[in-house]
Every structure is written in C-alpha cells, then in structure tokens.
C-alpha cells in the first residue's frame, strides 16, 4: 500500500557530503600507508625477483656457466613473448640458452616455465638440458607435481620427478610430447593435461631455437635486440 511507505526524508547537503568525505579520507590514508610500505619493500621485492630468476637460470643451464638475467633476447612466438638468456663459459663462449616461456593449456591458468637448451653448434643436435616451473596454478597433489624436486640439480636424488623426464631429450615433435600423444615424455599420473602443457611450451621454444638459432645467438652476443617471426 502506497500510503504505508514513509515519504523520503529530505537530506541536507551535510548528510550527503559527510559519508563521501569519510570514504575519501579513509582511502587517501590507505593509499598513503600503502605507498610507504611499497617504498619500504620495493628493493627487497626486486632483489627477491632477481635472485629467483638467477637461481632458476642456474638450475636449468649446465653447471659452471655464468648467466646474466638483465640481458635477455626477446622474440614473439605464436603471439607469446619469449625471453632467451645466454649461458656463457669462462672463456665467454656461449654454450647454452635458456628460454622463458609459458603455456595456457594447463588444467588451470598459465604455467610459466624456464627451459635450457644445449647443442647450439652447427653440427650438434639441439637438446633440452632441463625444465623448471616458474609459476603455475595446477591442482595441488596432481598437476602441481610438475614442480616436484625441481630445486634439486642432482637427478639421482629425485627418482622419476617430472623435470628428470625432460633431461637430455632431443628437440623433436616425436620426443617432446606425452607418450599418449606419440612422444617420449612419461605423463604424470592423473595429470596428462599439465604434462601436455609443459611439453607444448618446451617444444615450441625448442623449435623456435632450432629455426632461429643464429638470430638468437647474435642477439645474445651483441646488444639485446628484438627478434620475431617476420
């Protein structure tokens, strides 16, 4: 019944302005506080990111090579930006490259990986040194096993952990695929999709290195440059 509804109370300017003002002040206070915390943690966060990147590169590249995280060679492959990093020996010779890539074909979200390659000479066969998962959102206990034991560099200590299945594999579509799809990579139990996603990313990066080897090597030896499929 319409006459049961009380007429809206007329509101003064004050009733309208005070709530707005309070919210603005609280937001401004929060922003100030966050700015201070960000300033205080910025260097530590950058250092942690850098240390993590360097650590991951050292893991995927053969032992003894030195790495430089600050000078990647970037290329766009199938719409995704890949970064390549050089692993150089004491004489300054480029012995291996690592590719930072990702796959969105996982079970949940993006799987970002780092993968190392050796066999860059004209005569050599391009080989995967090993893989390292930088971030993922796969199911805990199933797909998350793509990261099992990956901080270890000694394969003997890791049993059949996922990363060991890529060690020393040749870059070829007949190898870098789950066994189910005609490759040689043993899939993780109940995590074929996660396995396939990592395989795809590794193969894609490997094929790019194979096809654009000289370009990447030149780019990494000289100034960091922009490459890409023309």
């Amino acid at each position, binding site marked *: 019944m319409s006459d049961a509804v009380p007429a809206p109370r007329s509101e003064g300017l004050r009733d309208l302005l*005070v*709530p*707005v003002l*309070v*919210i603005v002040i*609280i*937001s401004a206070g*929060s922003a100030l*506080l*966050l700015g201070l*915390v*960000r300033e205080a*943690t910025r260097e*530590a*966060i950058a250092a*942690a990111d850098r240390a*993590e990147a360097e650590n991951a590169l050292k893991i995927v590249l053969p032992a003894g090579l030195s790495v430089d995280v600050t000078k990647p060679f970037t290329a766009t492959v199938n719409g995704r930006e890949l970064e390549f990093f050089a692993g150089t020996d004491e004489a300054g010779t480029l012995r291996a490259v690592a590719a930072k890539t990702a796959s969105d074909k996982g079970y949940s979200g993006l799987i970002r990986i780092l993968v190392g390659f050796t066999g860059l000479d004209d005569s050599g066969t391009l080989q995967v040194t090993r893989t390292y998962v930088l*971030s993922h*959102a796969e*199911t*805990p*206990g*199933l797909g998350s096993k793509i990261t099992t034991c990956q901080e270890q560099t000694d394969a003997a200590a890791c049993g059949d952990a996922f990363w060991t299945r890529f060690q020393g594999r040749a870059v070829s579509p007949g190898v870098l695929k789950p066994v189910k799809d005609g490759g040689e990579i043993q899939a993780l139990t*109940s995590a074929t999709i996660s396995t396939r996603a990592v395989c795809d990313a590794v193969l894609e990066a490997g094929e790019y290195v194979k096809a654009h080897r000289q370009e990447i090597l030149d780019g990494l030896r000289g100034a960091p440059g922009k490459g890409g499929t023309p």
Partner: protein
Amino acid sequence: MSAWSEFSKGIWTQNPVLRLLLGLCPPLAVTTSAKDAVGMGLSAAFVLVMSNLVVSLLRRTIPDRVRLPAYIVIIACFVTIVDMVLKAYVTDLHKSLGLFIPLIVVNCIILGRAEAFASKNPPVLSMLDGLGMGLGNTLALLAVGTVREILGNGTFFGLPVLSSVMEPVLLFVLPPGAFLTLGFLIAGMNRLERRHAHG
C-alpha cells in the same frame, strides 16, 4: 565480558571456522600442507587485528550507511601490506599461497568481526577479539592442514612421517579431502561441546 574471554572465545567456544562456520574458503583451499595453513592463518590474523583496531578507532566517525565500503577499504589496505611484505621477505610462502593472500579481503571472518564486534567496542578489546579469532582460525587451518598433509602426502611440515606405515591417500590433498576433513573436525567439535554441555 572480561578481556580474557573476548580473547579466548575465538579459539574454542566461538572458533570462527569450526563453531561459527565462517570463512570456509581458506580452510578448504589452502590447507594441502600444514605450512601453507599456518602462513595463511597468521596473515589473516594480522589483517584481523589491524582492521579491528582501525574500525574500532573510527567507529564513531564512519557514517552507518557507508560503513561496509569503509571497512572493505581498510581491510584491503592491510591485505595489500601483507601481500607486499610476504613477497619481499617470505618469497616461498608468498609463492605457494599465491592468489589466496589477496582473497583475504573477502574473507567473511574479517568483515564479520569488523561489523559485529569492532564497530561497537573499544580498540583494545577489538584487538583482543581479532587476535583470538585470528588464532582460532589459524588453529583450525592447522588442524585441517595437518590431517590433509599427513594422510594425503605422508609428510608433516614437509618432513616424511608416513613413509613406512602406509601409502598416502591422494584424495586428502584434493578438494574432497578438504570437505571430508573439515566435516569430521566440525563433527568432533560438536561432540566435544555437547559432552561438555551435559557435564
């Protein structure tokens, strides 16, 4: 109520997860290991104490009709601080908790305590309430995380404990294991409580 009972109620009689059944997302989602559970619990406890304090201090300033947006801004501010600090100094934990840290913003324990307690009580009591609720939440997370990690992965805080006794039951680190574990813990709490009530 005394200060002690404001603090202790959150741990047992009004445990947010096991008695009030509030904020059940983290106990289900981030309890695949005891370590993640504790990290999550302590992060939420920090946010809870700080947001309770600020909400209580501003309880006469914030107009009633905009209280929810105001609380959410305050809570989001402290959650972002936790996120940045964890990222800077406890990188590993930050990595494994991932998206669930920002999601503390929408944890209903925190908004619930701001609305039900801190907006009506003085700062010290509000902080004690937040601390008690935060610890109660952490203990509940730890309980779920402990059961799931031991049964599902055969480890406790990463140390192998089951290796020679039995094969881990993978189900327990999967979502159904979370529901089962939480259900049995709540049932256990109810039983203890009932026995207590009957003397």
